[in-house]
């Protein structure tokens, strides 16, 4: 196991998960998870339903702090600083690590205001800066061509796939270090899924991506590294090819061949 982990670490980690435990009140949902997130790569989190993928992902931007009773133990080190520490303001963490949710959740505002929101809350009000950054973000999210003539229309007028790309643009506009995706295509049809996968593959030039996915094909198609979780534990983490071609663990094999899940 140690050997195998060492083999995997031939990259520059942007974040290191160290002895991470997480509790929902009494329920121990994440159990001693250790792995490193490679910089400017796509890392996929896979595993059967209820194994703790979403829970782990939401540790990275301290979403669990919004609800009482949740407790972290251990750490996630970004530039050597434990972002789960009490002294670290969760707002600071969320400003550096942004998130795209499972169900598209645009604000009931115009397309422009949706994307500009992250800048506005940081106090950016200059119209030229906003215009420029909103355009860049929409281009990165492959939505600019469809949206440029209707920036002042409601985000709710967009299709589901377009709404999800809008949420991606919203998450990109503030130039985060890491973007978290929680099954971003599970509510979408294959064509919309395809366009979002394409855009994510393109994004890794710029940012580190951590993505939860139910679809092993999706993980195989475009992730560089894959972490397999089972019942709150990290069973295996390695290069995606390795995981899919010759997994080291029996449980990973079983899951990939459909015996558990």
């Amino acid at each position: 196991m140690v050997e195998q982990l060492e083999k995997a670490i031939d990259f520059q980690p942007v974040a290191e998960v160290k002895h991470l435990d997480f509790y929902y009140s009494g329920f121990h949902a994440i159990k001693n998870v250790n792995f490193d997130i490679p910089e400017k790569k796509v890392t996929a989190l896979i595993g059967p339903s209820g194994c703790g993928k979403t829970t782990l992902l939401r540790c990275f931007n301290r979403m669990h702090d919004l609800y009482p009773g949740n407790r972290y133990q251990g750490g996630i080190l970004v530039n050597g600083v434990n972002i789960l520490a009490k002294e670290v303001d969760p707002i600071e963490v969320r400003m550096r690590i942004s998130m795209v949710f499972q169900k598209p959740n645009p604000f009931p505002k115009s397309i422009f205001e949706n994307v500009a929101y992250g800048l506005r809350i940081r106090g950016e009000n200059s119209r030229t800066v906003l215009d420029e950054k909103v355009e860049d973000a929409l281009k990165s999210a492959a939505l600019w061509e469809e949206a440029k003539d209707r920036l002042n229309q409601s985000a709710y007028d967009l299709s589901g796939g377009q709404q999800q790309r809008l949420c991606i643009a919203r998450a990109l506009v503030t130039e985060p270090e890491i973007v978290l995706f929680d099954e971003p295509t599970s509510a979408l049809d294959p064509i919309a899924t395809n366009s979002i996968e394409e855009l994510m593959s393109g994004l890794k030039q710029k940012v580190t991506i951590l993505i939860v996915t139910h679809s092993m094909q999706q993980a195989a198609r475009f992730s560089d590294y894959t972490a397999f979780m089972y019942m709150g534990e990290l069973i295996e983490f390695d290069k995606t090819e390795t995981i899919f071609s010759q997994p080291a663990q029996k449980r990973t094999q079983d899951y990939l061949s459909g015996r558990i899940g």
Partner: protein
Amino acid sequence: MQNLVEIRRNIKQRQLFNNIFALVGLFIILVAILILLALTLRMFIDGAPRLNWGFFSNFPSRRAENAGILSAWIGTTLVMLVTAVAAVPVGVASGIYLEEYAKKNWLADLIEINVTNLAGVPSIIYGLLALGLFVYDWSLGESVLTAGLTLALLILPVVIVTTREAIRAIPNSLREAAYAMGATKWQVVQDHLLPYSFGSILTGVIIGLSRAIGETAPVITIGALTFIAFLPDSPIKSEFPFISFEWLKAPFTVMPIQMFNWVSRPQADFQVNAAAAGAVLIFMTLGMNAVAIYLRYQLRKGIKW
């Protein structure tokens, strides 16, 4: 084919109850609306002969045809103004605090139960409370200010409860979206929760104010006059600083008291006055609703559901 016949029979059976309910519902609504319309119309017809300019610009008088509602409608307007200015910020702020900021523990539950119960306390109790607190302890006098604050207390529970419900109805996914961008709690409230719930909160405020505008008991308890032949001091002055708050301390009367006063007289002419005053009161309530509809419309332009 036989299957299809069965399915259709089955649907018909189930639709029967649906149709019965729809019919009964429609019938009840029609009856209620008709009764309301008949009563209102009757009042308008009875009061019509007195609904002229003089009725609005005259003080009350011992002779019915000279008597007007000047002091009453101005009194009601000013009292409602104070009520709204006091109850809306306090009520909305309390609702937001309880829903978004306060820790969810037994204390919060206790406060919640209390606030809900306060909405059911008879209004005259509020009058007594106000008499002791505002009139005697704080020496605010039997004034517009006292009446406004009293009615504000009365409608505060309604405003708080509707604010909480309106905020609670906003999908959590929108809160999470905003927090995930790095918004502070206040930014979430200001940029999302308040704008999205504004319409429902406004409806609650109007329901509260519509209740307050018709209240008589608490206003009499704190010492509103039944016969008053002068107006509160004008809020706008020709000299610096051009505005004045002396009117807050003025004695006053309100529309329902004026109406009651006229209804209780034996002469038929005064009954006409009472009907006319009732019609005006209804228009004032409708006016508040119109303002609410306008504000909702204005705000909806910014929100794109």
